[in-house]
């Protein structure tokens, strides 16, 4: 009998409330003091086909999800066909015995526990419609897991409150009936239970929400964007909280306008941000160069998805690394940071604004669907010590005593104090043309060369020797994984799985891609016994970036480019095979 360790999935057609069902299940577990990880899978379609939401539940922090399922809540038969191979021996399939054509005996013969309940008849008794089916399913699952109904009732009430008291009552009634039927009929044949744990209050949030919170904490006051999966929920979250946060959020006509407005707002002196995915970032390319040339702070979140072109709009990949590192014509510094989890998403979103304003460069936060759209439990962020630093800015007073303010003055650091429109004494013209110290268009060879050197040396003073990378585990381990971004979740999960089996591996997580922590990465790799790069792309882009920056060639690579993230057990098996 296992308590509070579960891999649960709800599956059904798009439009059947799969995501809602999954989120409710996740919330019930989170409010019960358990750690949760939620992964949503859906095709680029509005109705039909197949959606699924998988929730991993544990009493310890959950990093990622497994292929193996303990419980499948199948809201249609198609889900059963798609996922039975993932259900472990003794695992349960919860389904609607009224509607399904599934043969329970066949499932039993394959080693599963068929939990068939009369969903339709429950819905009819309660006086509701088909929309209640997913609540019936959740109730049934909770009954199977012997989770006390009184513990879940308040969260159910809460979830349906906005639909009115009738909806709340119907949902509670439906859930209770299903819960009791499952508990009575099947619970004693199932080997997992869920119960409340004493734990501090935790948030349940996605990577995109963490980014939005970090940006709000940093003082972002202007956001412009264009909906593009998987970045859209940043736009939605900020639009919802726009007035509360005293900011302006614009859904622009296209990505070029979005990044243009963002740059204009930043130039005016407001902290501003935009977010998109690879296709939108392709459109924003020219403006990234404008930010580089005019030395205007610009924060962009690029949440990757599989390409090329439209690719797989709702799936995940980390294949834009080299693209982002080299974006836009010519040579100018940019800062690129790849968070690996929620905590880093929050922290680096905050840092991005300080960095953009201090170094007066574009800062790109590199995410992907797996990190942006997945849900984790997390204790509220510790915001102590998060200090806003606006870099070198001149106000009216110091300007008044300067006889010749030069916006692009040649300084030792390469960073020249900036001034916001509206400030007396500072009027100048920022230009996309090459320019002299005052900003006037200039084609002189000597000035051009000096201005190139000035811009390029700006991020020399950004020290990433400590913050640019992280070593998880013991560097004496027989194998070191090298990875970045959202694969952090599967890698750390795999590390735990392998450790349980007595194998210890370490994980070098690269965080800052530009500037790159070359010396430290080279050192760590040199000391490692054996190195394998694990990436979610087809051409091992991090391995290439490492080679470019350090000269170290990583020969062994584990690559997944099916448009899905690495799963914990899948990765652990692959690693085991290589040992």
């Amino acid at each position: 009998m296992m308590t509070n360790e579960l891999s649960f999935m709800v599956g059904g057609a798009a439009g059947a409330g799969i995501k809602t069902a999954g989120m409710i299940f996740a919330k019930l577990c989170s409010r019960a003091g358990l750690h949760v990880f939620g992964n949503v899978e859906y095709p680029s379609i509005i109705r039909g086909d197949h959606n699924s939401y998988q929730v991993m539940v544990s009493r310890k922090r959950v990093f990622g999800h497994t292929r193996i399922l303990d419980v499948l809540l199948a809201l249609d038969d198609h889900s059963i066909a798609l996922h039975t191979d993932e259900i472990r021996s003794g695992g349960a399939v919860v389904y609607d015995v009224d509607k399904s054509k599934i043969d329970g005996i066949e499932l039993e013969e394959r080693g599963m526990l068929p939990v068939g309940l009369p969903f339709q008849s429950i819905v009819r008794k309660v006086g509701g419609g088909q929309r209640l089916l997913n609540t019936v399913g959740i109730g049934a699952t909770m009954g199977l897991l012997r989770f006390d109904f009184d513990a879940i009732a308040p969260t159910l009430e809460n979830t349906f409150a906005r639909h009115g008291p009738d909806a709340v009552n119907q949902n509670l009634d439906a859930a209770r009936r299903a819960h009791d039927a499952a508990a009575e009929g099947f619970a004693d044949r199932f080997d997992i239970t869920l119960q409340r744990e004493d734990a501090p209050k935790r948030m349940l949030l996605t990577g995109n929400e963490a980014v939005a919170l970090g940006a709000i904490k940093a003082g972002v006051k202007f956001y412009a964007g264009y909906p593009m999966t998987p970045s859209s929920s940043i736009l939605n979250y900020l639009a919802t909280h726009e007035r509360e946060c005293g900011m302006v959020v614009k859904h622009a006509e296209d990505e070029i306008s979005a990044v243009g407005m963002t740059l204009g707002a930043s130039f005016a002196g407001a902290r501003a941000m935009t977010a998109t995915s690879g296709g939108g970032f392709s459109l924003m390319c020219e403006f990234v160069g404008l930010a580089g040339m005019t030395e205007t702070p610009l924060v962009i979140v690029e949440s990757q998805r599989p390409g090329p072109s439209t690719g797989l709009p709702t799936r995940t990949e980390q294949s834009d690394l080299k693209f982002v590192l080299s974006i836009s014509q010519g040579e100018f510094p940019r800062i690129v940071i790849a968070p690996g989890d929620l905590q880093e998403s929050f922290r680096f979103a905050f840092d991005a604004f300080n960095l953009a304003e201090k170094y007066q460069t574009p800062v790109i936060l590199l995410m992907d669907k797996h990190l942006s759209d997945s849900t984790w439990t997390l204790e509220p962020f510790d915001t102590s010590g998060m200090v806003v630093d606006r870099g070198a800015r001149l106000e009216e007073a110091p300007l008044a005593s300067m006889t010749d303010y030069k916006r692009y003055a040649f300084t030792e650091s390469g960073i020249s104090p900036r001034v916001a429109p509206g400030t007396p004494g500072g009027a100048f013209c920022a230009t996309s043309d090459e320019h002299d110290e005052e900003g006037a268009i200039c084609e002189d060879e000597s000035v051009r060369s000096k201005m190139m050197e000035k811009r390029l040396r700006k991020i020399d003073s950004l020290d990433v020797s400590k913050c640019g990378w992280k070593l998880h585990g013991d560097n004496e381990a027989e194998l070191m994984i090298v990875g970045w971004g959202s694969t952090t979740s599967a890698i750390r999960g795999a590390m735990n799985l392998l450790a349980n089996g007595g194998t210890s591996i370490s994980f070098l997580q690269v965080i800052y891609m530009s500037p790159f922590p070359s010396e430290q990465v080279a050192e760590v790799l040199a000391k490692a016994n054996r190195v394998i790069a694990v990436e979610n792309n087809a051409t091992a882009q991090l391995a290439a970036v490492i080679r470019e920056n350090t000269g170290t060639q990583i020969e062994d690579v584990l690559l997944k480019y099916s448009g899905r993230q690495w799963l914990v057990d899948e990765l652990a098996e692959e690693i085991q095979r290589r040992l």
Partner: protein
Amino acid sequence: MENATRFNTIAKPTWCPGCGNFGIQSAIKKALLSLDLQPYEVAISSGIGCSGKIPHWINVYGVHGLHGRALPVAAGLKLANHKLVVIAEGGDGDGYSEGMGHFIHACRRNVDLTYIVHNNGVYGLTTGQVSPTGDRGFASSTTPHGVLEWPFEPLALAISAGANFVARGFSGDTKHLSGLIAEGIRHRGFSFIDIRQVCVSFNPAKSYKWYQERICKIEDEDHDATDRTKAAAAVLRDDECLPVGVFYRGSKPAHEDGLPQLAAGALVEQNITDIDVHTLMDELV
């Protein structure tokens, strides 16, 4: 106000002698002076082309940015600091080729700014290709057999897309033009002024004489500038006269009027040193 030369710069324009841009530059400075503005209160966001260089030669804050992209930058400037007087500016190649999409949405969006387009029928800085307002049949390096596309009427497009103030000017009449620009700046919402100008280098056929023979003033006629349909008819008129003046004055609220978060002050004036996100985090529990 003192210092009538405050909008002058030491640097002088690199435009060709006789370029219509000089007249527009002069009219803008006159307009800003007439409104009692100070250099630091004004921001010009421009595109790329001969006209796009103008913010280098008017003493205000300038962003001489990307081809066709003056309008989004201008909107960001204005929404971040709505106390600024914001002008978006560029040529007809910049604004009507590359920037056409942004133009239409800027009219819809109605942010309180003024869009000035220098319209000479060609791309000057890249040596004379035909622009979207050039005549059908115009021969240029990219259209040696004569361009097949027809010119469009930007004022009609602005009216139908919802611009709140629509006017046409002529670079050769700086007194009239400066009045238009000042009124456009004063008029709340998106003000659009298309300014016909001579390009002495690449469109000499449309000379000052050519324009002076055709230009008439719409205010000399009995024109109702509060009526969109009449304004559209007036700009699509096809006769020997090329009217300049204000075709339409609308009264829609500006975009900013729908943003209560700006009531307390400009976004750039907010204190961002210690923002508390605990309430937001509690919502996620």
